[in-house]
């Protein structure tokens, strides 16, 4: 076993024995994300555990250690004309693969290509008893045993330490173009909806500052044809615009206001809340930049009414659970799973929910 893994294991075994809580940390790029309490515990640093384990372009699979910087992984894929299709945020290069999977965050392409969880094929995991476990694998289809690899995606490290992950990768599109339309929110939503019902090569949509941006990705002739169909002006700065949406560096996200992320049914009507709003994923993702007097209860009620949930993305408040609270029956299952994977409750306590 490599020395780093040995150290990590030792650390976990000891923590389990002493019931010492740990904060699992990769690049620290998501310290802002989730409930803050977990951050005060001793850090279990994953970043040193780096490196590509296996990459075969013709298999469409890459496996890497959890501490591997995400942008390093992505540039390797890019050299071979491939990509992580869920377009994860890399937060200025600080993000690691492990953190990416643990947080399960996906970028603008998510509404069209799928989420982080859709591309996870396997994980190597260190559980709360200090056991190293392998789930899933490097093949596209695998229904042997429960899908523990996907269960880790978005669990915020509360179920175990991700040591390695294998992901499905996809070829990069031959051509990309962003169209821009001046549109009020109702019409923007309507346009997004119309796109979803047709086979257009749309790979991202965003309504922000009264403009609707539609990104087309695919072979040149299909992008051309879609452009003709949709009309609109070609927006020059294709790359940096979508980067700024993916990493939330666009001015919309940068104010001092609280940033709420609402994941809702794509056809939900515009929200009647007085705050600045941005929309992605064909209407399924809504951002609120809200003043503090806009209460969590009010925001969450709106999200629920729209068939989804609301997360306090930036602007932590010790009195507000970052993630949408669970109904009792689901919480019961969550607690039991937590106890099975991490009996002493040492991994990232309360990072996900105040209850564990």
């Amino acid at each position: 076993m490599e020395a780093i893994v040995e150290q990590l294991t030792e650390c976990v075994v000891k923590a389990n024995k002493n019931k010492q809580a740990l904060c699992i940390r990769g690049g620290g790029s998501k310290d802002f994300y989730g409930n803050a309490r977990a951050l005060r515990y001793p850090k279990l640093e994953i970043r040193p555990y780096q490196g590509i384990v296996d990459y075969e372009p013709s298999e469409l699979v890459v496996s890497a250690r959890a501490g591997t910087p995400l942008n390093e992984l992505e540039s390797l894929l890019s050299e071979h004309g491939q990509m992580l299709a869920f377009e994860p945020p890399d937060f200025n290069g600080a993000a690691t693969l492990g953190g990416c999977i643990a947080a399960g965050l996906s970028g603008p392409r998510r509404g069209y290509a799928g989420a982080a969880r859709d591309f996870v094929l396997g994980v190597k995991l260190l559980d709360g008893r200090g056991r190293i476990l392998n789930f899933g694998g490097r093949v596209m289809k695998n229904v042997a045993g429960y899908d523990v690899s996907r269960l880790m995606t978005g669990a915020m490290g509360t179920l175990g330490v991700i040591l390695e992950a294998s992901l499905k990768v996809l070829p990069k599109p031959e051509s990309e173009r962003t169209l821009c339309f001046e549109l009020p929110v109702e019409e923007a939503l309507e346009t997004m909806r119309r796109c979803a019902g047709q086979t257009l090569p749309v790979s991202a949509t965003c309504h922000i500052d009264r403009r609707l941006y539609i990104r087309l990705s695919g072979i040149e002739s299909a992008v051309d044809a879609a452009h003709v169909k949709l009309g609109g002006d070609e927006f020059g700065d294709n790359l940096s615009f979508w980067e700024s949406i993916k990493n939330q560096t666009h001015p919309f996200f940068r104010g001092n206001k609280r940033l709420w992320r609402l994941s809702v049914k794509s056809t939900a009507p515009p929200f009647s809340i007085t705050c600045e709003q941005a929309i992605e994923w064909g209407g399924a993702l809504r951002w609120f930049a809200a003043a503090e007097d806009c209460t969590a209860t009010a925001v969450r009620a709106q999200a629920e009414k729209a068939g989804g949930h609301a997360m306090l993305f930036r602007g932590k408040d010790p009195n507000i659970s970052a993630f949408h609270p669970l109904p009792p029956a689901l919480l019961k299952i969550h607690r039991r799973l937590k106890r099975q994977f991490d009996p002493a409750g040492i991994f990232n306590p309360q990072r996900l929910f105040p209850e564990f």
Partner: protein
Amino acid sequence: MPRANLVKAFRKLLPSESVLFEPEDLRPYECDGLSAYRQMPMIAVLPSNEAEIIEILKICTAEKIPVVARGAGTGLSGGALPHADGVLLSLAKLNEILEIDPDACTARVQPGVRNLAISEASEAYGLYYAPDPSSQIACTIGGNVAENSGGVHCLKYGLTVHNILKLRVLTIEGDSLEIGSEALDSSGFDLLALMTGSEGMLGIITEITVKLLPKPETAQLVMAAFDDVEKAGAAVANIIQAGIVPAGLEMMDRMTIAAVEDFIHAGYDPDAAAIVLCESDGSNEEVADEIEKIRDIMHMSGAVRIDTARNEAERRRFWAGRKAAFPAAGRVSPDYYCMDGTIPRKHLAEVLRRIEDLSSEFGLRCMNVFHAGDGNLHPLILYDANRSGELEKAEAFGARILEICIEAGGSLTGEHGVGIEKLNQMCLQFGEAERDIFHAVKAAFDPDALLNPGKAIPSLRRCAEFGAMHVHRGEEKFPDLPRF
């Protein structure tokens, strides 16, 4: 509780024709698609709504009676095989499509709805449900979720897990869970993924919201014949390497081609050692461009014949051959045993060679069809159950194939599930600690292990015994292969 009392209790909840206990009434439920395993249940119940299921589960929980869910019973690993002292819970009567939302591109359906019925009902809106198992006329969406079923179009459009949004699930303890949502993600753990492929072990699925996709403008199919299986395998890799994600990428070997041609007259080249079917779909521009690239690659890879379907009828005929591979096996042999291993594509030729060696070793013929694009093999072992010892031979042959898949870094099941059939091989693919976690996951949902007991995850004891036997037989051992 004795059976008679249980029947009485169920009859208070359900009309009497929905509570079956006479042997002749139970017979249709004694097996699923893996008919080598048969077992009559104590009782079968056919509820017609969720409220009835809740009451049934209450009784079973109180009396600690095992419950086995069943959709259409087309499963190929014995997942729906009844429990001798248990209740067989058929979801067949919950077969309503509750809502199609063409704006959101979703359908909300009951678990007993047939896979194909969803696409048929969505057709009016220009939409369809993408995962298309070959059994799609018969199998239910509840069964699809429980098995994470795939189909020939899954390479591009994903498996069941990628195409569902939300489930309603009843736990054996009587809780009603809403898992997932109408949004693209949910708060908390990804229980939607955990439920998908869980083989009826974690809960009873009572409602499913699926994603619908717009029907592609057009689809086109290339059929390429090769005089050598290895070349066909290379062609598959070359297509993927070239950055193409075809809508379907399937392969058949010589024996399959012959069986299918004889049955369907699909127009396959009878002299070919292997045939690769490669489909492109999307806008007219995309398809024209992709088909040209695919033809070039097939040519470069040494195809001896390349046909592009000249019209829709021919495209359907080319596909019909592939989709009829299982029944075609049934015509050339009294019985066949369908395997379902997955491997990294690069090992295709080598694995095929080893299967061929085993075929002579066991003296049983084997047809090979694959979802080649995602490395999912379906070797069909031909045997005659009426000849004494042949079934056992076929099973031993099948077990060896799965072991080869595991050795090659693959998995013992790509889409048919573990069920009762592949419990032993689970002991090889997973170590004790992983299996321990699987039992722990089960316990989090079903602490008394009443749902489908004895399936999917082998007990520690079983693996210990199997391990001893495995070494005892003096066969090759499996070093603890890293699975990454």
